[in-house]
């Protein structure tokens, strides 16, 4: 059990850094947005992992009987966060489309060249 828990946290760290690498090292704007999405997904994984309880189940009251529930509060938070994440990604993609129409390119260094002129 301990290996599984630690493995979840390690995958969170690795996924977080993979997404962050895509944001800082890649030059294509859409690739940066994809990296941002990966970053957000890693954070969601961390929160939900922390909410899990041993032998727990989804926090929905069954017809009868008492059961152990996993923590509902991180799930509420992440539900909101997923929808906010897709909203900002959609807005970001809108801006990228407009940049492409105005500058003719979505590579960061080419846009900076055109700006200098």
């Amino acid at each position: 059990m301990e290996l599984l828990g630690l493995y979840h946290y390690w995958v969170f760290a690795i996924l977080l850094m993979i997404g962050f690498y895509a944001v800082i090292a890649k030059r294509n704007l859409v690739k940066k947005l994809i990296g941002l999405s990966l970053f957000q997904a890693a954070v969601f994984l961390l929160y939900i992992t922390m909410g899990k309880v041993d032998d727990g189940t989804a926090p929905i009251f069954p017809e009868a009987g008492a059961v152990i529930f996993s923590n509902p509060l991180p799930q509420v938070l992440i539900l909101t966060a997923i929808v906010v994440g897709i909203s900002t990604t959609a807005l970001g993609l809108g801006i990228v489309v407009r940049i492409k129409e105005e500058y003719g390119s979505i590579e960061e260094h080419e846009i900076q060249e055109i700006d200098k002129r």
Partner: protein
Amino acid sequence: MIVIFGIFLLTLLVITAIAIVRTDNLFVAVMLMGIASLLIAANFFLLDAADVALTEAAVGAGISTVLFLGALALTSERERAKSSNRLLSFAVVAAAALIIIYATFDKPRFGDPEAPVQTHVAPWYLEKTPEYIDIPNVVTAVLGSFRGYDTLGEVFVVFTAGIGVLFLLGGGAAAGSLPQEKINEGLRHHLIPRVVGRVLIPFILLFGLYVQFHGEYGPGGGFQAGAIIAASVILFALLEGEQRALSVLPERALLGLIAFGPLLYGGVGIAGIVLGGNFLDYSVLSSDPVKGQQLGILLIEAGVGISVTGVLLAIFHAFAARGR
């Protein structure tokens, strides 16, 4: 057994993420993002987060892929340049990852019922939900009633994203676009997808409505339902062409939906004030406080669903109508 499942899914997720970053064809990266979203949704389900898994699958694997593909159709499909400062970035990223991994050894044991996060306020919510609200799904109860103000903020974020994209891209076809007939054709001359789509779309809509109204009894709620209903209309637009989709659900109706969602939510809040309670206090909506809470949650989930449907559809049409 679950241990093997969990480790397998997480390893596959890391491999997919590395492939996403390393490929230079953006279409491939977007498809792999869809796969990564589904793997994360499966993982959420293993971690007992049923609502979150449904949302991640519907929004992440469904709507997000469509939006990215719509944007890629308007920009380029290949990443042209090599990355900048690769060694420095990799060093920074590796150092940060090692620091975080070092910190994970101090975390409470995975699944520990005595961990601080489990003993702080969660037992209060689990105890009081049957008493104050009496619906089986605790996540919907907390989202809709106990933390309803946060959800109002989220509906406004979705609204803002919708009007933001409409400001940026809502002007219709840009200069030098394809002739209208080509864009509006859809998959007209392909018989099989059209027939199967026509059979499936009513059932997808029905499932969306089921998820909306059963949010109180099982996993579901406004966000997932909004994404599913938007997906069914997007399927119709892909099969029958943009023009027919706009004649079925015109621009004005979409703008009405975008505005009506937050209006309904805020209206329920103000109705609480008018009837004598606080803002977003549902207990005063009916003579029995518990029934009032349930009515309030039903109304605001409807508001959330309408808002999310309208915004996602408006964003899709904004991308699709831009032309090339």
